[in-house]
């Protein structure tokens, strides 16, 4: 096979960047741009938009229109937004509290064992999220694995349930379960690089274990902790599968609300507005992270 590559390096570079940039540009940037525009249009009944500028979609988040056309403050959607941030925050904290000790434990193992542990943590992460989430219905659900012993022991009547499923609790479990590898892996990466002689130095200088932990280990693994928190928080905030399968219809989050607006309620501008709020939140967190990471880099250079 013979091919003549373009001789100009700039032209060659442009040509080889075109497919990737073109595809992402057309099927991602433009669609997200369209969503941004749609969030400022009027809704057409049964889906679609009317091309006239309107901030109704954003107003609808906070207010309800009464019969006489006056606006009444309505907390319904604010509750969904608050629930999303709260559950994402809880999932993040649970992941951190469980993930840090696990990451620390693995980083203290001999190299051969470390790789095995990391493989075991990575495997579930690459398996189907939907399937792994729905398995929790069998565990938490009515007559599920957790309830069965209560029924056997007669603590619960045969028609009673602990009510674990279809609750905020179930969503938090699902989010923690799904995203915890994203907490363990970056913290592990930080801890593995950590120069342990610094901890020994702290010991030599009569620091207690707790002091060595809070003053040496935590500050040095901070990049991993921050990255892990972000990697758990961001996907949790926009999660769809977990609130949809484990939360039931009542416990909506931003992700399920967006999907609901586009598939069932068919109010596209409103769905687009919520999608924009979600996107804005994610961008804000990423920017804070980028700034923190830059600060960290500066510190390391000095």
């Amino acid at each position, binding site marked *: 096979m013979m*091919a003549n590559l373009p001789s100009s390096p700039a032209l060659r570079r442009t040509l*080889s960047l075109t497919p990737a940039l073109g595809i992402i540009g057309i099927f991602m940037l433009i*669609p997200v741009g369209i969503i941004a525009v*749609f969030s400022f249009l009027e809704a057409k009944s049964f889906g679609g938009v009317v091309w006239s500028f309107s901030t109704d979609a954003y107003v609808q988040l906070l207010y309800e229109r009464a019969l006489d056309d006056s606006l009444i403050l309505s907390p319904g959607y604010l509750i969904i937004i608050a629930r999303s941030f709260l559950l994402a925050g809880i999932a993040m904290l649970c992941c951190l509290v469980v993930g840090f000790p696990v990451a620390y434990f693995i980083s203290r193992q001999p190299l051969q064992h470390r790789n095995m542990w990391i493989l075991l943590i990575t495997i579930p992460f690459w*398996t189907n999220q939907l399937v792994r989430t729905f398995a929790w219905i*069998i565990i938490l659900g009515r007559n599920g694995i957790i309830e069965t012993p209560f029924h056997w022991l007669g603590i619960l009547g045969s028609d009673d349930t602990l009510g674990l499923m279809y609750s905020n609790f179930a969503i938090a479990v699902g989010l923690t379960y799904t995203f915890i590898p994203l907490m363990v892996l970056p913290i592990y990466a930080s801890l593995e690089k950590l120069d342990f002689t610094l901890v020994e130095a702290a*010991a030599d200088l009569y620091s207690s274990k707790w002091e060595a932990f809070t003053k040496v280990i935590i500050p040095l693994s901070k990049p991993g902790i921050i990255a892990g928190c972000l990697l758990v928080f961001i996907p949790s905030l926009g999660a769809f599968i977990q609130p949809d399968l484990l939360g039931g219809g009542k416990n909506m989050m931003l992700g399920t609300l967006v999907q609901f607006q*586009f598939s069932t309620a068919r109010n596209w501008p409103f769905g687009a507005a919520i999608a924009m709020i979600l996107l804005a939140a*994610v961008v804000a967190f990423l920017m804070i992270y980028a700034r923190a990471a830059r600060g960290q880099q500066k510190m390391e250079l000095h």
Partner: protein
Amino acid sequence: MAVSDQITPVATKAKKRRAFGEVPGLGAVAIAFMVFLYLPIIVLVIYSFNAGNIVMVWTGFSTDWYAKAFANADIRKAALNSLVVATSATAIATTCATLAALALARGGSFRGKGATVGIITLPLMVPEIVTAVAMLVFFSNLGLSLGLGNVILAHVTFCIPFAFMPIRARLDGMDTTLEQASRDLYASDWETFRLVTLPQLMPGVLAGAMLSFVISMDDFIITLMVAGAGDTTLPVYIYSMIRQGITPEINAVSSILLLFSIVLVTAYWFTTRTKPDGKNH
């Protein structure tokens, strides 16, 4: 002499570090964590062998549900769609990502390089649900209905960054002296690429392709929004089954899907680990 000098302090250091750095009970936490991580998968697989048709009530061992799942024409169709989409999306995304990674790693510096990387990794940052509805609106407004083609285009878009990252990492870690030597020996650019760069890059390309494939096979929410009625993939089909109530048949299909990913990821892990590192040849 230098070697023996080094061994002793390192060995004592290791001992000392154990003593101070060890926290009792952490092993138990780690094992409990593993149980938490694998419990749902194990439960799912065990209950897929339940003879009865109510998932939660164990009535005996049976492989009937697997036979049923395999005999179900809709499941077979969905599985085939999944494989077609994942294979096409992987091939296209990996090609685009390889070209882009080469341009960025070997094309010198140029204006907008940071922005280019930003756009390529964009699908990783935008929440999936936002991508999903954006694509839905885009395709429906354009009136673009290519059947499975829409799904493939959507998958290519979010697979590109997953393919890009390992390829770019491999390129950055590669020594350029061989490429220079090849050019010094009057090989054309194309020959250098085909005979020197590409063979060295292959492990990165394979890693990227494998990530794309797994990501595409597992995608649910974007496919749900983009796919037409007849173009369901396996995860979307499983979702519609769950909505109608959980049956052991879903467990059987899900177990197969899980096993498929687990085998792929494990195989990938062991092949990349036994291969010599690109840095030392």
